[in-house]
């Protein structure tokens, strides 16, 4: 394995899986992963309307009798099944760069379990609003996200009512700015755009009526004219007409705003290149987004072509990347795989459970807590027991190639057991990097 291949596998991917064949041309292998639709197949998993039906039925059953449902409850089953399928896909995928992009955009548009009762729909959200758009237009992804019940529930949009709308007048209800604010601050233009509170409020008015309906045969997102604030709204100097179309227009405006492109470029470069993104690399990706009208496939391809993307690895793997990379490295068969969901929680990154809407952090300092890293070592020790038949040195060389340091190799060779040797590999600084 040469260094470029190792970087393609580790920086852009999820680490080599066992002794899988190596790509002949690493850059071409990455580019190919951006072609065509998402290769992941989740045909057996429920779509959002089915998931919302399960949620509705569970709520109704619990309303009738709080003890009528056994454990785990149907929504928990949905969540676990979806989580297991998407984690298994990450471990087994032949297109790990594509998968990394999915998780990157999932984190950019964080929907967390922590509020909004989203457990039933986070999985469908990723499959429906994120995966189809990872190599498409950012505006399309933004629209799909903002119209998805998961986001409408997570950031309280479903209950936001225009104060002067019919519903607002009748029920004395009003705005909830949460989604509007986070959309501007985190998903699109960022405070660098210089917007004011009045812009946030106006955008919140634009989005009134974007809600969900559970009581129909195919529950999902609805636009409620009765809850929509009448009149034209001005957001960041642009006027948007009333009605559902006004919200779509506002999102298109925000999606293509210059600071949005800069925000996305900086986040992509930080994720794939370095904690402190090199300014020229950011400018390059920003330019691609601007010139391609927000084509995320083109921006991803441009990442591969950055000279900085082939420099020595400095990023620290997040717990999620770390666990998946380790299981791939050990090539554990299904029945020996650890409970990834539980492990991620133990290592400090419980799946789809970010504390706040800004998602999980993306700098080494955020993941390099002493106890967190020791827990990785503890977990490495545990999981190493499951790979008792593997040759640790051969596995290390197959996984890291030229990135394996002589010191790590020597420590592994002097280890008292295969398990200890494997623990040292998985706890080595080079395995922690991506």
């Amino acid at each position, binding site marked *: 394995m040469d260094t470029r291949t190792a970087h393609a596998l580790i920086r852009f991917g999820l680490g080599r899986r066992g002794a899988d064949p190596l790509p002949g041309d690493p850059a071409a292998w990455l580019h190919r992963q951006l072609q065509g639709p998402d290769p992941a197949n989740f045909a057996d998993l429920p779509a959002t309307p089915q998931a919302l039906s399960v949620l509705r039925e569970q709520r109704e059953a619990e309303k009738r009798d709080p*003890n009528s449902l*056994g*454990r*785990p409850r149907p929504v928990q*089953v949905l969540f*676990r*099944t979806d*989580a*297991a*399928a998407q*984690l*298994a896909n990450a471990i087994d995928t032949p297109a790990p760069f594509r998968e990394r992009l999915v998780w990157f955009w999932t984190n950019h548009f964080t929907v967390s379990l922590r509020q909004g009762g989203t457990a039933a729909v986070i999985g469908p959200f990723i499959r429906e609003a994120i995966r189809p758009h990872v190599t498409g237009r950012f505006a399309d992804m933004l629209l799909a996200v903002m119209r998805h019940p998961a986001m409408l529930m997570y950031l309280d949009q479903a209950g936001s009512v225009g104060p002067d709308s019919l519903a607002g007048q009748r029920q004395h209800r009003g705005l909830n700015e949460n989604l509007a604010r986070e959309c501007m601050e985190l998903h699109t233009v960022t405070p660098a755009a210089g917007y004011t509170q009045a812009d946030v409020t106006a955008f919140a008015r634009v989005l009134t009526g974007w809600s969900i309906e559970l009581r129909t045969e195919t529950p999902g997102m609805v636009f409620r004219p009765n809850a929509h604030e009448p009149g034209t709204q001005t957001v960041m100097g642009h006027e948007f007409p009333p009605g559902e179309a006004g919200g779509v227009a506002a999102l298109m405006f925000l999606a293509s705003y210059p600071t949005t492109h800069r925000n996305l470029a900086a986040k992509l470069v930080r994720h794939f290149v370095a904690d402190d993104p090199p300014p020229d690399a950011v400018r390059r990706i920003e330019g691609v987004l601007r010139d391609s009208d927000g084509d995320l496939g083109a921006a991803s391809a441009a990442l591969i072509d950055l000279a900085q993307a082939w420099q020595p690895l400095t990023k*620290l793997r997040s717990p999620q990347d770390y666990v998946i990379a380790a299981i791939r490295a050990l090539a554990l068969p*299904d*029945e020996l*795989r*650890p*409970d*990834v*969901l*539980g*492990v991620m929680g*133990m290592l400090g990154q419980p799946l789809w459970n970010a504390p706040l809407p800004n998602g999980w952090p993306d700098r*080494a*300092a955020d993941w*390099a*807590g*002493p*106890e*967190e*890293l*020791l827990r990785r*070592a*503890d*977990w490495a*020790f*545990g*999981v190493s*027991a499951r790979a008792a038949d593997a040759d640790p040195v051969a596995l290390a060389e197959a996984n890291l190639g030229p990135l394996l340091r002589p*010191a*790590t190799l020597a*420590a592994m060779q002097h*280890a008292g057991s295969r398990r*200890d040797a494997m*623990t*040292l590999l998985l*706890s*080595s*600084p080079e395995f*922690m990097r991506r």
Partner: protein
Amino acid sequence: MRLTRRAALLGLTAAWSLGGPLGRASLALAAAPTDKRFVVVILRGALDGMAAVVPYGDPGLATWRAELIPGAPGTEDGMLDLGGFYGLHPGLAGLHTLYAAGELLPVHAVAGSYRSRSHFEAQDYLESGADHRMTSGWLNRVVSVLPVGEAGHSPGGPALAVGMAMPLLLRGPATVGSWAPQNFGTPAPDLYARLASLNEADPITGPAIREGLRERGFSTEVLSNTTVDPKQRYAFPSLAAAAGRMLAAADGPRIAALEIGGWDTHAGQAKRLNFPLQQLSTGLLALRVGLGDAWRSTAVLVMTEFGRTVRVNGTNGTDHGTGTIAFVLGGAVAGGRVMANWPGLAQANLFEDRDLQPTLDLRAVAKGLLAQHLGLPPPALARVFPDSDAASPARGLIRA
């Protein structure tokens, strides 16, 4: 299907926590013969009962151990009041919420029937339920006197030891399962030392791992000392949470035992107790969370092998003593009060002029729980605790 107990339960846990392709192993445990849950937590190392539940209303207390008394109730980081005479150690703040909910019943000045001050003997006796070591533990005998469930025993049995080892408490003729998280084992100190050295020069992982080991109480010297056992210090809350989830399952076990160490506070007690007390408190709340609705039909007995000296020793710690605290807690428990026949701390009242005088036999507490919570009749109680006629079941432990 014949699985080893541990493997079976590992599979079970994996299936619960994930389901689907990543955890397709599964196991159905047979119906248990009761819907009541009973959990025993062993505090190994002898908890100072008067540090955990401080009899601050006793005028003698400050004469013996002023330096070990936390701040008064109502002060910052002070005790949490338990009715005007006793105060809960601030490290047990989580338990105070249970007290307020009427679900925590501290039982003070309690001791087993033995008078050993050896940890290892006393733990054997505590778990045997006698004043000598038996070949089975009293909780195992509880399992054998419970009626068998409709579908018979599951491979794991209706009881479960949570942790790496099977404690004597649960050993015996009745089949009992044991469960430990897949990652329960931790590297030996020497392996920690080697992986620390591997990371030493790294600007990110090097300092973090060094600090992590320091925080975990490893100094450079003890890295090569194999007696340090970090799992004892780190695992309890997650074990308790897992135990709760397993006990809550409709087809899961009904009886479980856990343990947590760190109580042998011979030096610097005030500081050293904070961590294990917080772990205990956090873990018991995690147990409750794991149990969910089943908490309502749960009783937990937290017990330790003996108490510690009333006087502070020369290193601001306490030495092995006699009378101590036990905790009874759970949704089924008639708590919100302290149960004690308080012996007083006047010198004449101390046991052998050094220890808290025990006024209640721990077996009476256990028997009271078994009778009122699990419905064991007197002959069954006599099998569980042989020769315990003198310790008649304590009354009023369980809500009517």
